[in-house]
């Protein structure tokens, strides 16, 4: 037990791993939000066009 080494120092890899996980999920959520926003803008424009034709 005297000569037993402790766990390996792999904290940086853990940080990198969680950066990828949170980054990828976060980017996907932002992507969905932005797509919703773009669709709302398209919808507003279509409402204007329909109002003009009415």
């Amino acid at each position, binding site marked *: 037990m005297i000569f037993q080494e402790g766990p390996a120092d*792999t904290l940086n890899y853990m940080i990198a*791993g969680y950066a990828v996980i949170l980054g990828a999920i976060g980017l996907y959520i932002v992507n969905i939000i932005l797509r919703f926003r773009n669709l709302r803008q398209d919808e507003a424009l*279509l409402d204007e066009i329909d109002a003009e034709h009415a």
Partner: protein
Amino acid sequence: MEHKPKALTVLNWLTGAVFVVALYIVLIWAPQEAIMGDVQRVFYFHVSAGWVGALAFLVTAIVGGIYLARGEQRWDRVAQASVEIGVVFAFINIVTGSIWARPIWNTWWTWDPRLVTATIMELIYIAYMMLRRGIEDPDRRARFGAVYSIVGFISVPLTFLSIRIFRTIHPIVVGSSDPAALGAFDMTVDMRVAFFFSLFTFTLLYITLLWHRLRLQVKMEKIEERKLRALSS
């Protein structure tokens, strides 16, 4: 504009809260692994991401079959939504696996059966998304997607079973690992709690994202329809 259902708002908050708790559990509460150190903590979300990928592709195959049987467009919408989420989470699974492997196997990549089959599975579903866009007719596109997703699903159990069928250095979480496996460890009770809570968290996250992505798909189709009507008039 359609308002977001109250249930979805509740689900958003619930998923967010559960995710924060899961982060606390895996990063702080769960014990440090005796040999690998902190990089072992990546395992909890790495496996959970892989689980969501597999679940998403399974859902895609099932609704693909239902679409072929019934011809109802809503099943194709679910397929599209689910595949996209599956691709994202399978990507997370592959990349985090690589990050874990660097200090443990001393390499970012090796031609191990699990890594190869997981990557092939990811490429199959990326191809699904790309090929669909090349088909203009919605019915043909949906039918193609349904057949492709059913056939492509073969890659999912193959990926899961690869570490049990072939010689591999990838550790097995449930059951005994191949003696050649590097990085295998026995989970303590606390680690099991962290592991299963992570699986639950990611499943909840999948359901939440699927609901949002479905709403997005419905909205996209409605806007597309209105654009076509506006152009034709």
